[in-house]
């Protein structure tokens, strides 16, 4: 190939090219690469730290999330308990009120019954009183009308004996 046939021409050029490249490489390695490499390394380190931070943050966030969830759960439970308590309390109050009302009704009923009983007794007492008074009055009238002097005399004598007997008994006692 004709291109390779000219190698003789460019032989020095190749040599110098290699030399200058080597020199350049050496210079670069000596002066330019270390800062670049340092910068790269710094960056890498930074990125790595940031990734670590991010992971830490993520972990923290997860922990926080878990905590929050747990808290939420406990809050839910608490709320549930409170509702239950309130419900049972309300129930108790309701029952108590019901009982009280029942007791009150019962008491009122008893009082009414007692009052009715008292009124009834009073009325019956009055009726008895009137009946007795009437009976006694008519008996008195009847006796006054039907008793004659002989009866009265006999009664007086009998009652004298009765009274004497009573006094005798009392004296003995």
């Amino acid at each position, binding site marked *: 190939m004709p291109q390779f046939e000219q190698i003789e021409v460019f032989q020095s050029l190749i040599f110098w090219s290699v030399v200058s490249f080597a020199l350049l490489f050496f210079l670069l390695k000596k002066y330019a690469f270390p800062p670049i490499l340092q910068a790269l390394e710094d960056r890498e380190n930074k990125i790595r730290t940031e990734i670590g931070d991010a992971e830490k943050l993520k972990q923290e966030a997860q922990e926080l999330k878990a905590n929050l969830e747990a808290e939420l759960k406990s809050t839910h439970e608490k709320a549930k308990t409170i509702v239950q308590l309130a419900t049972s309390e309300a129930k108790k109050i309701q029952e108590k009120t019901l009982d009280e009302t029942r007791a009150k009704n019962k008491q009122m009923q008893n009082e009414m019954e007692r009052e009715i009983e008292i009124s009834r007794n009073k009325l*019956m*007492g009055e009726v*008895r*009183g009137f*009946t*007795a*008074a009437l*009976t*006694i009055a008519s*008996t*008195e009238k009847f*006796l*006054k009308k039907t*008793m004659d*002097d002989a*009866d*009265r*005399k006999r*009664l*007086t*004598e*009998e*009652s*004298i004996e*009765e*009274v*004497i007997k*009573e*006094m*005798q008994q*009392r*004296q003995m006692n």
Partner: protein
Amino acid sequence: MIENLIGKRYAEALSRSVKENSLLNPVLENLQACKNIFATQDQLVRFFSQPSIPLEKKNNMVRELCDRLNVEQVVCNLLVLLSERKKILFLGKIAEYFEKIVDRRLNQVRVSVRSAQTLSNENIERLRSALTKILGKTVLINVHVDEALIGGIQLKIGDQVADATIKNRLTLLKQKLEKEEVA
């Protein structure tokens, strides 16, 4: 209360000053007569309870009263004493207690009899002899006729009562009727 105390004290004093038992009844009668006058004459009560009338006048009034009623000397003395001590208005109580004291000293007992009809002498004698035997004391019987009793008699000796009247029986019957429960 104070009336009873005063009555008792003066009655006992009067009894101590009357030594002879035979004088007791006349003294008691005098006392009761005076008491009756005070009970019936309001003016007399007002005269003695009036503090503005001088004591001398009151004493004179007492003496005049004694003269008119012709009372025993002890009774007159008592009345003057009572007037001086402003206790003449307790005469009723004094007479009441004196009567009890007289009864005790003479060993006698007063029996008040309420009867529906007038008691015959035999009735009264029967009562007197029986009660004398029972009580062992002289019995003084005082009879009131009360037609409201319907029949029978009621006896009252001190605070004891023996009732055998129709009225009492009817009252007992009435009480029983009133207490009886209606089934």
